[in-house]
């Protein structure tokens, strides 16, 4: 069964006055308009918090009602920051059974109506309890991973700043990104410390936002070529590797094998940079370069819109904003837009034929790789 992304719907990420259901419905309606409102018989929705003004919402039935999809089948999935990737994979696998014709996938998060302390506590659900007991947070563990990477390859923190500058320069071209202004390395290096060596501008922001895509039978420029997922130990201390994510390496291997492709055929990539220096490890884990080689790719400018491998043309998680569940689907949506020639002001220099999107759950415990591209019918 061959399936493809027929339409992408993205609202603006950032601080939005609307609630979760409205944000999700907005993205969904953009995606449905893109297919001329043809009927949908499967709905897959992802949200980590499913947070409404009065607490957790019955997200799936409320959205079904709002969108008039009562005759469809529906599923809700959750995998922290990897939720959007998981939602897409569930929908694609369901369509591959032949039981459904067309799926609407939505991933949404409402965050800015809550305090940073509340969000930090909620996000700790993606960590091991012993880590939270020791006072660790997601940025705290990311800082340990980053510090180890810098030390292992003899790097200074300026490479972290360069990755953040890249993210923000890409985001400045994307009208739906949270951050519309580029930053200098000096601004990044002088932003306040979150967890050494990570500073504020290395970290993704609390954002509201939603993404939707329509998947249907058939082929197109964004045909699903390969899906892969991988797990790693939840607890950082139980992992074999600290400067590389096993879950990404496994997911990439499975996806490349399914697509019968190698990384050399990938023309554009969206990686899950919840912390900007993680972009380095992700490029290495996805096979684009060897261990410790990714900093050179940034220093040489090979990751720009006209580089040998444009990386995160949407701005990535750091530039686009991080409505937790939506980020993984936004990465897939961005790759589909690039492949379909619909990326507008953030299109890469040469329209790509194959693209790869990456999603990370927690600190890398369950990661997803999605390869899309053109395929002859």
């Amino acid at each position, binding site marked *: 069964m061959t399936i493809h992304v027929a339409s992408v719907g993205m609202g603006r990420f950032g601080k939005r006055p609307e609630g979760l259901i409205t944000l999700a419905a907005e993205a969904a309606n953009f995606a449905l308009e893109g297919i001329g409102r043809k009927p949908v018989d499967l709905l897959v929705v992802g949200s980590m918090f499913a947070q409404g003004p009065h607490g957790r919402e019955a997200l799936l039935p409320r959205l079904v009602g709002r969108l008039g999809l009562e005759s469809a089948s529906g599923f809700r999935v959750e995998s922290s920051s990897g939720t959007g990737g998981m939602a897409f994979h569930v929908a694609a696998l369901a369509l591959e059974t032949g039981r459904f014709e067309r799926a609407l996938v939505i991933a949404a998060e409402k965050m800015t109506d809550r305090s*940073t*302390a509340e969000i*930090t*506590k909620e996000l*700790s659900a993606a960590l091991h309890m*012993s*880590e*939270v*007991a*020791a*006072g*660790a*947070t997601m*940025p*705290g563990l990311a*800082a*340990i*991973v980053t*510090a*180890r990477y810098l*030390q292992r390859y003899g790097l200074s923190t300026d490479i972290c700043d360069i990755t953040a500058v890249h993210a923000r320069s890409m985001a400045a071209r994307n009208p739906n990104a949270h951050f519309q202004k580029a930053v200098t390395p000096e601004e990044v290096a002088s932003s*306040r*410390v*979150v*967890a*050494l*060596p*990570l500073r504020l501008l290395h970290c993704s922001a609390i954002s509201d936002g939603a993404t939707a895509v329509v998947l249907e039978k058939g082929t197109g420029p964004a045909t699903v070529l390969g899906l892969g997922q991988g797990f790693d*130990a939840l*607890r*950082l*201390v*139980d992992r074999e590797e*600290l400067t590389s994510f096993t879950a990404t390496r496994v997911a990439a291997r499975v996806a490349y094998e399914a697509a019968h492709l190698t990384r050399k055929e990938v023309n554009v990539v969206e990686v899950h940079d919840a912390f900007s220096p993680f972009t380095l490890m992700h490029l290495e884990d996805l096979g684009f370069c060897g261990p410790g080689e990714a900093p050179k790719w940034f220093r040489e400018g090979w990751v720009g819109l006209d580089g040998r491998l444009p990386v995160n043309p949407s701005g990535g998680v750091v530039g686009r904003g991080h409505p937790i569940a939506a980020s993984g689907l936004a990465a897939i949506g961005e790759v589909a837009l690039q492949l379909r020639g619909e990326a507008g002001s953030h299109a890469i220099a040469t329209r790509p034929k194959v693209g790869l999107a990456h999603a990370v759950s927690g600190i890398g415990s369950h990661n997803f790789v999605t390869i899309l591209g053109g395929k002859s019918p």
Partner: protein
Amino acid sequence: MIPGATLELTQCHSCHARFLPTDGPCPKCGSPDCSPYSTSAVGRVLAATELHYPASGWHAPHRLALVEVADAVRVLAIVEGVLPVPGALVEVRRDGDVHRARPEPTQ
């Protein structure tokens, strides 16, 4: 007999993995056939951080270190004192639900 302070770790009798005690089975193979053993409490810092926004209940700056102790077992420990540099030797001890690390006492 191990001289000096000791730290309790767990060994799996199925896959022979050695790891920091958990409340569940072996994190490598899932076997429940595990038992505790004692080893030297001295370890080497792999990486450390200073959190300016630690988890609820902790005060900033909160320092954490990832420490490798015997048998390549790693421990996430709360640092007592200044932030250690990678490679520094520390003594790790269990304190209720958490582990704490301090510079190894000099001879």
